[in-house]
Structure formats: C-alpha cells, structure tokens
C-alpha cells in the first residue's frame, strides 16, 4: 500500500475542512456562551440573542456543520478516487 501525492493532498484537504468546521463549532459554542450576557442585549424573534444561541441557534449550526462535512467529504472521496463502491 503506497500513498501517492494525491492521497496526501486528500488528507490535507480533509484536515483543512475539519479544522475550519471545528473553528465554527468553537465560536458558536464557547464564544457565544462566553459573551451570552452581552448578546442578550440583542433581541431576535422575541428572543434575547444569547439565550437563543444556546437554545436553538448553535444547535442549527451544529446540524449544518455535520451536513456540510458529510457532503463535502463524500464529494472529495470521489474527486480523489478513494470512494467506496463502483471502482
């Protein structure tokens, strides 16, 4: 089993998207919670924003992160020819 340059590139792109999505995860979780008191000064749909993030906003972003990762990686597999199935 020999890894080609292309394989390494695949793994790097995987790490890059993982890092990026992890960054978003970090911001909507910890930064949003850290500044929850300040965010509460803003109102959205009747909710104070800090509360909204914890109760709904961050959750929606989590779902989106996982959805995007699955789509991105499943496409990336095909692009680099490391996908399962009809090869």
């Amino acid at each position, binding site marked *: *089993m020999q890894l080609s340059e292309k394989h390494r590139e695949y793994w790097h792109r995987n790490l890059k998207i993982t890092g990026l999505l992890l960054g978003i995860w970090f911001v909507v979780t910890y930064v949003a919670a850290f500044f929850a008191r300040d965010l509460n000064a803003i109102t959205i749909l009747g909710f104070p924003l*800090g509360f909204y993030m914890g109760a709904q906003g961050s959750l929606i972003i989590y*779902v989106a*992160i*996982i959805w995007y990762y699955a789509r991105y*990686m499943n496409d990336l597999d095909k692009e680099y020819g490391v996908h*399962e199935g009809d090869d």
Partner: protein
Amino acid sequence: MNTTMSSNQAFFKQLSRYYTFYTGGFIAFVIVVGILEFAGVPNKILGYLFLFATILLYAGIGFMSKTADVGEYYVAGRRVPALFNGMATGADWMSAASFIGMAGTLYHSGYDGLAFIMGWTGGYCLVALFLAPYLRKFGQFTIPDFLGARYGGNIPRFIGVVAAVTCSFTYVIAQIYGVGIITARFTGLEFQIGVFVGLAGILVCSFLGGMKAVTWTQVAQYIILIVAYMIPVVWLSVKHTNVPVPQVAYGYVLQKVTEREKVLNDKTSEVGAKEESVRQIFRDRAAAAEAKLKELEASGPTFLAAEKDKAAAKVAELKAANADAKAIEAAEKAVKDFPADVAAAKAQWKKDADGAKAKAAPVKPHAEAFPAKDDAARDVAKKNFLALVFCLMVGTAALPHILMRFYTTPSVQEARRSVFWSLFFIFLLYFTAPALAVLVKYEVYSNLVGTAFAQLPAWVSNWAAVDKTLMAITDINKDGIVQLAEITIGGDLVVLATPEIAGLPYVISGLVAAGGLAAALSTADGLLLTIANALSHDVYYKMIDPNAPTTRRLVVSKALLLVVALLAAYVTSLKPGDILFLVGAAFSLAASAFFPALVCGVFWKRANKLGAILGMLAGLGICAYYMYITYPFFGVNAPKWWDINPISAGIFGIPAGFIGIIVGTLISPAPSREVQELVDHVRYPNLEGDLNTQGS
C-alpha cells in the same frame, strides 16, 4: 458492487414501508385507546394498555430479528441505512433524563440549563469530524477493538474494556431507575417490581437478536418518543400563541415571562408585595433554622434534648387549647420525625435553612445568563457552564454505546450521513425542550399565580395528590391566593403534566409515559449490549479464547447480557443516591478515558502503545481522583480546583489524557509499519491494495 448498492436501496425502501405502516398502526392504536377512554374505561387500565402493548411490540420486533450470525448479532449485519441508523442513534442517545428530566432542568435553571442542550448536541460535531467515518472504515465490533488493533497488545484493549464497562454501567443504572419510576407511576406497581418488568422489556429486545434486534426496536422507539414529546407541546403552543410551531412561537412567550418576572420581583407592585410577604416568612424560617444550627454547634446534645422537649410541649399545649386537628397532627409529626442525634439534626436543619433560603430568593430571570449576586460569582458560574458544556460534548464523542452504532452502516459515506441524521433527530427533541419549559413557566406565572386556593386547576390538585416531590402547594401567608413562592415544582412534572396543562385527555398522558418508557428502554438496551459485548467479545473471545467457535461466542455473549442486566436491575432496586451525578460522571469518565486515545489513534500516526496506556490511565485517574476529593458523597471535601464542580471533572481528565499520550509516545519508539498502515487504512475510505480489517 452495483448489486450491493441496489440491494441496499431495495432494503431502504422496504424499511421505509414497514415503518410507515408501523407509525400508522401506532397512531391507530392511540386513537382506539382514546375511544376507550371516551367510553369510560378507567385510566389505570389505559396505563396498562400502553405499557404492555408497547413492550409486546418491542418483543415482537426483537423476536423477528433473532439471529445466530455474529455479524448480525454485534453490528446488525452492517446494512443499516443512514436515516434509520440516525433514528436508532437518537433513541439510543435520548434517555429518560432527556425525555422527562431535560425540560424540568430548563424550567428551574433557565439559561444555565442550556449547558445540557448544547453539550448533548454539539458533541456530535466531534463524532462526525473525528471518529464516525474512521471507526466505520476500521469496521470491527467494539471500541476496545480499535484500541487493541491500533495500539497493539491486550493492555490498551483491557483498559478500554474497564472504562467502557464502568461508564456504561453507571449510566444504565440511571436508565433502569427511570423505567422503574415510569412503570410505577402509570400502573401503580411497586418501584422494585416496575424495575423488573422494565428489565423484561429490555431483555426481550436484545436477547435474541443482539444489535440487529436493538437497532430495529430503537427505530420503533424513536418514532414513539418523538410523537409523544411533540403532541402536548404543539397543543400547548396553540393554546398560548395560536401558532402550532412552539420552537418559533415561544420567543414572544419568553418576553411575557420576562415581564412577569419583573412584576413578581417588584416589591412596590401589588403582586410583588404579596410575593415579598411569602419570601419574608421563608427568610424568618431560614434565620430560625440557622439560629438553631448555631446553638447546636455551641451546646450539642443538651440543646437537641431541650428542642425535643419543646416540640413535645407544643403538642400538649395545642391539645389543651383544643386547636384544630391539622395543627395537632403537624406538631405530632414534628415530634415523631425529630432528628435522633446531633449529626442528623445538623443535616436536617441545614436542609431546612437551605430550602427556606432558596424560597426566599427573588425569581431568577429565565433568559439571563449566569445570574449571581456579584461579578465574582458570575465568573464562577460562567466557568462552570463552559466546563460542563466541554465535558458533555467530549463525553458524547466518547461513549462506547453511541460510537458502536456507526459500525452498523453499509459504508463510510453512509456513516458520515448517518451522523447528520442522528443529530437531526436528536435536535428535534432538544430544541423543543426549551420551548416546553418556557410555555409551562408562562402557564404557572400568569395563570396559576394569583388564583384562589379554592379554585386550583385540576392538574395542580391531581399531581399534588399523587406525589409531593413533583407538585406541592401551600398557602404560606394565608391570604387564600397562590403566590409563586408558595409553589414547589419537581423537574419531572414539566413533561409529565403538560398534557393535562394543555387540557388534553388522559390518553395523551399515557402516550407521554409510553414515550418516556421508550426513551429509557432504548438507551438501556444499547448500554447493556455495550457492556455484554465488551466482556464477551473483547475479554472472552479476543483475550481468553481466540479459537472459540461462533456458537459459543454468542452463547457467552447472551449469558453475560442476562447476568449484567440482572445485576444492573438489582443495583437499581437499592435506589443508589444521586442519579444525575451518576450520569454526569459517566460523561466525564468516558471523555477522559477514550477521547484522547481514539482521536490520536486516527490523527497522529506516531501515537503508540505506551502513550495510549499512559494517556488512558492519566485521564481516568485524574478524573476519578478529582471527583473523589470534591464530590460531597465521598466525604473528603477538598477545596475545588479553580472552582470547578465535580460533575465537570473531565476538564482536568481530558488534558491529562492528551498529555499522557504525548509524553508516553515521545519517550518510546514509533509504532510498527503495520500499525502505520492501519492508520492510513482508516483515513481513506478506499485504497488500492488496502488491508481488510472488517470483522466478520
């Protein structure tokens, strides 16, 4: 390959058809029970109907899925489509605590309770990004399997088994406890009997068909629990806002609650003044209890004896004065329950003082983050909130019974999609819980507060009659009107009483109970299977007798399942202390033991055996040590590190685990070529000349 794909598609279509019929059948069943209720069948019979019909249903699915194939028994034959694996994971994940307890926690702690909402959903991002696809590619049967293959030798595998069994066992006790409570409440059976009835329900699902049976039952259980959760909340939302989407509509209800909180806390308003009069009474009680504590500190047993005489004298005095029967009864009860010794008196009065103090405090604003008396206290609250979120998230991505589910999908791609579906189905319930909490709060703050005691709504008096810990209401200041400070609501009431608050018939209450039961049973199933598999597959097959034939492996596995289940039910029937702490502890322990070793196993090729051993031991050790020295139960009560609560011990355990791996790895040689190839193998869904680690 094309034929497997089309057979997968056919299987998916077939499953969709089955579960659509099933959902329709279940709705028809609920309607029939509703008609029976209308015809005058008593509530208790309806409760039994729900209990036995659902358990019978799960048993039926379990029986139809019976199998003698190892692959089917351990990983459901690896052909569970992403969507259905998502539902099964949702049911596996959402326990009695999520279904019944979560909304109550949010009702009581407002923003601070959101740590559980964020922690128990955000953790799936870590599952998706760091673990699920790689574990699926690895494709064996258990989590210790991965540790064993990646780090080599039996020691990492064995530590993995110990950690998996420890955290799953603490967690399963909480589930069986929930099963016992629900059965007891809705059928009138005793708690201990309820536990064993529930146990029968758990075993029929998993005994014959292992993971295959558990998977298909969990899908069925998810459907029941989500329907049961949504109906009352939607109804309540329509009642208060005329919008059938509670998750959107409750923002405006929250505004009203916030306004109401201000009025209740405003001593100059009419309502606020009445609240204040009740709070004053509680302040006096707290002061009295504290004065007694001080005296007790100073003069010990003499003071206790004097107090006991005083209590007895009061009974005599009341009797002599021909006071009303209730007052005499209360005084007699006080004598009867009088603490036996100084230690008991100390505990009792401390509890009284704390309880009264809590009641004397102003209303906590629901949406305010980290409410506290000053900035220092706010910082401590914020720190603990962030730490708890972190531990719950990492713990989510380390609990073996969840990770195991991603071995069951047909491919890596499906595993990735399946994490999305899992979180989506979990999200449906978790973003509804905060809405439910606010809607019930609105009902209590604006409709219950201010009514006359003579005209309490039916749900209040019903629940107060059933269980004082769930609903207690006393006219403290004797003005005949309900004040907020006079109401005590137990967390579990919020979900259990919602159908009645919303004015729905009893059949919906039965449905909610069935939902709670489904949540508890499905989680217990997954956990018991994890424990039994770790023992039978990892300890017996991989470590003791690698040549064991298939039939014997399955016999051992089933025997262990039975033993573990009975043991868990026995421990539960003893009613061990603080359930919520047990659950929290399981998360911190799993996070500290598994997460660093699993993630480094995939993302750091250099990580080796010594590193993994050191990391897992350090993580588990630090986490357990911190809980031991700070959790009051153990009686050490050492000062906390940076004010972090024992439930978040993982905040120290997780870094310790990573440091252990890094240090252990760097002081010993790099892993062998085979291990490095294994890492490449799990990183790429498909490689030419690839290894085959798939267990069969």
